[in-house]
């Protein structure tokens, strides 16, 4: 009986691990390819592991294709992603507090509007938004990529609302008696307790902004301002079949997202599942 259970558990783990390897195979393939000679990356007899490890792909790729190196692209991506993430966290927390905790006239209306916006695909708005930014003279700057993030992101507003609804109302009332007003309740009670939800927002919004391709594609035209995602595409086009440096830069571009995930993974798993479905 006990042997049978042990066997079943082992089979389970072997299956989950093998299937997991299959799932991350494309990532492994990319990283290994970034250390390969050009001749070993593609073709029917290409080995999985490089026969000689080519570190040179990294410095070769880092130089970029024109006069601008990947140092600039990473800096640009960092600026856009950090500012955008900060904006998302603060504005979304504010709005979620209003919609979840304050009884104001029109709350139902704004909540419905928020859900509608969440369901509205952004691509539908890409042309008119571009026309507006163009008329404001902001095309070719980071402004169209960053500023909107300071106006709340419905997906995260919704997620944080679910979380705030789970906080006991007695906390607010107790704080009221101690002399807090609605503003200090937000900064002293709600914001600190939002912790897990804020971490989830940081991780997810950071990687969404970091990975974003359409925004930079529309709004950034000078290579000096390219973010990593846009630069890699241009780099790949310029390099043609010289895949080694391209895979090297692709691998590097994923590192910030990976690190963030590694640090906050535990909170992320809880935050997403606590937020998204209930209610």
């Amino acid at each position, binding site marked *: 009986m006990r042997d049978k259970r042990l066997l079943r558990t082992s089979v389970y783990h072997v299956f989950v691990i093998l299937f997991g390897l299959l799932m991350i195979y494309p990532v492994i393939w990319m990283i290994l390819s970034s250390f390969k000679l050009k001749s070993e990356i593609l073709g*029917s007899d290409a080995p999985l592991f490089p026969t000689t490890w080519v570190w040179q792909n990294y410095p070769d790729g880092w130089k970029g294709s024109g006069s601008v190196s990947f140092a600039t692209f990473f800096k640009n991506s960092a600026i856009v992603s950090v500012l955008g993430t900060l904006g998302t966290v603060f504005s979304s927390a504010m709005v979620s507090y209003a919609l979840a905790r304050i009884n104001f006239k029109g709350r139902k209306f704004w909540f419905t509007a928020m859900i509608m*916006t969440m369901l509205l695909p952004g691509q*539908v708005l890409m042309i*008119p938004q571009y026309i507006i930014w163009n008329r404001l003279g902001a095309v070719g700057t980071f402004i169209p990529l960053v500023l909107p993030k300071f106006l709340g992101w419905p997906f995260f507003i919704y997620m944080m609302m679910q979380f705030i609804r789970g906080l006991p109302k*007695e906390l607010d009332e107790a704080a009221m008696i101690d002399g807090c007003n609605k503003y200090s309740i937000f900064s002293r009670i709600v914001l600190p307790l939002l912790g897990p939800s804020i971490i989830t927002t940081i991780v997810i919004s950071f990687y969404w902004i970091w990975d974003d*391709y359409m925004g930079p594609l529309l709004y950034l035209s000078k290579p000096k301002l390219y973010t990593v995602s846009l630069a890699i595409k241009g780099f790949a086009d310029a390099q043609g079949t010289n895949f080694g440096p391209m895979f090297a830069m692709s691998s590097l571009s994923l590192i910030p997202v990976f690190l963030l995930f590694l640090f906050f993974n535990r909170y992320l798993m809880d935050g997403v599942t606590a937020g998204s479905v209930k209610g």
Partner: protein
Amino acid sequence: MVLSARKKRSSSGGFLNNDNVVGYVFALPFILSLLLLTLIPMSLSLYYSFTDYSIGSKPLWSGINNFFELSRDATFGNSILVTIQYVVIGVPLKLVFALFIAMLLTKPTRAQGFYRAVYYIPSLIGGSVAVALVWKQLFGSQGPIVSIIQGLGAKNFNFFGSTSWAFLPLVLCNAWQFGSSMLIFASGLKQIPRDYYEASEIDGANVVKRFFSITLPCLSPIILFNLIMQLISGFMTFTQAQVITDGGPNYATNYIALNIFKEGFGYQHMAYACAQSWVMLLLMAAITGLIFKTSSHWTYYEN
């Protein structure tokens, strides 16, 4: 306690502490974004779709000319068809996959957290250009996957050279990012009361029966939620198609968002692209609405 709190509030009151004022102060970012980033652009786009506007020119009213053109535009018609193909095949595949993995990883072992993290990795990076570039080579004519397929006998097989197979790597890339749906399914699975399963086990129901008579009905509201979210993002797929195939071969993966992008920024037909956006929006609204309407027949709420 509630009473005293209320008293305190009204006495320390003042304009700024009025609930209506506080509410609007905190909701202000969203109100601004709704106005400036959604409503104004949408109305503008609606207006432009009845003109011949392009950047740098004055919009001249052209009535329903754009929509008339659209009805005869074979490229646009094709892009709607291939988008529907992408969604109809891709979304169910992704959801089934997400549910399968979520169920696989419900077994409470010490490695559960680790497993979930590993299975979430594709979703973390799957939307990036880096992965799209990997996909392009991984499924390319010289890549390892085509090599395997050719080794099995299909001598000249090539995904991106074939109008009937080019969509598959894109669909797989989307399905591969099953992580967020998986986590949402996992939290739903956790909420199904254990005694449902125990009772049915006593009644002699087998695994398959339990899945269809307990798991699926209990998960149905969550399936609806995931279905709607994935449908919307599926309809608007852009990055992968732009980077991997650029719509080809012969428009086989020229999805609607890509077509709008090319029309607006490639050919500078802004007004025509706006009209396309509106047709697409209405189509999606109709499909989403239809799903909501029929959902009362197949979703099951406990209370």
